[in-house]
């Protein structure tokens, strides 16, 4: 795993430590084989998964776990498609039984057009899940006030949307994202809205702990190549953050000395 070139630069969520700062989704791929290859190319250690009814009419159809293997990746079950706290809890209890993991991604959506989270319901669901023993990474709006409430309610990670899910529009509010990063003592991840490698670089440069993406890789013309690009982007952004960027100036500063000219 070469999720980071910087030796010993790891991040920890809910007591689990990871080297790769790129979490990838497993939706929208042509097939599970391409999905698995993209997750490998991304150097991911965590993948998000959804919980759905089995197809009873064809029990022999391909299953995700036969390709993207739970012994290779940490599965992060989501609550995609849930619109109430009760739906989310029911889904994640089934996920916990199916997989045996208590680390989950909570997303309680408001509306199918923009898929932005319903924060009041998200906060309520988070409290229910925490009291049920889950470790909850929370998909949220980029509102620093709600982000703080989530942290106080026991969120294991704060995961603001950079832009709507699947929109590929990149970070829409750097100011809010920066405020959330500054105030949070749990990991902050950009979740949703990344479109291309530069979006991932920017997220990491401003200090996100990791980035979560699905569509940017799955809908690229070559998902495997884009997964590799995203791996490098996340590493580059992280290293630039650690290195500390030069100040921005109004005027030029010559790189070659002006003295000693012939």
């Amino acid at each position, binding site marked *: 795993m070469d999720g980071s070139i910087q030796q010993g630069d790891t991040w920890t969520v809910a007591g689990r430590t990871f080297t790769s700062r790129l979490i990838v*989704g497993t939706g929208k791929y042509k097939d599970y084989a391409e999905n698995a290859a993209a997750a490998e190319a991304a150097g991911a250690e965590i993948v998000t998964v*959804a919980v759905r009814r089995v197809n009873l009419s064809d029990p022999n159809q391909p299953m995700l776990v036969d390709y993207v293997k739970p012994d290779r990746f940490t599965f992060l079950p989501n609550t995609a498609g849930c619109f109430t706290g009760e739906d989310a809890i029911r889904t994640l209890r089934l996920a916990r*039984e*199916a997989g045996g993991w208590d680390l989950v991604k909570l997303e309680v959506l408001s509306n199918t057009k923009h898929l932005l989270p319903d924060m009041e319901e998200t906060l309520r669901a988070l409290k229910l899940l925490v009291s049920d023993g889950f470790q909850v990474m929370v998909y949220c709006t980029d509102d620093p006030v709600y982000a703080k409430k989530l942290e106080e309610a026991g969120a294991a990670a704060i995961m603001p949307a950079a832009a709507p899910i699947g929109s590929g529009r990149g970070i829409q509010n750097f100011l809010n994202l920066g405020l959330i990063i500054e105030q949070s003592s749990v990991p902050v991840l950009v979740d949703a809205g990344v479109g291309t490698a530069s979006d991932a670089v920017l997220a990491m440069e401003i200090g996100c702990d990791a980035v979560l993406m699905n569509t940017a890789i799955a809908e690229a013309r070559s998902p495997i190549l884009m997964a590799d690009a995203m791996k490098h982007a996340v590493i580059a952004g992280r290293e630039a953050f650690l290195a500390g960027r030069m100040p921005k100036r109004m005027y030029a500063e010559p790189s070659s000395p002006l003295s000693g000219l012939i």
Partner: protein
Amino acid sequence: MTLTINGEERAFGTLSNVAALVAELGLDARKVAVERNLEIVPRSAYLQTAIADGDRIEIVHFIGGG
């Protein structure tokens, strides 16, 4: 007996427990999770959990998602 599985009514012969139902459906018990009348059935309890006529069963697994 008639069960509602994943929202669909289906008729079965006599099924003694959840393990028998999962086997009857041709599913790998290690890859699914089962809910019976809104209660999770732990995998370790499939043999001990009886099925009754009219039960509402949900059987789920992991699929791709973001």
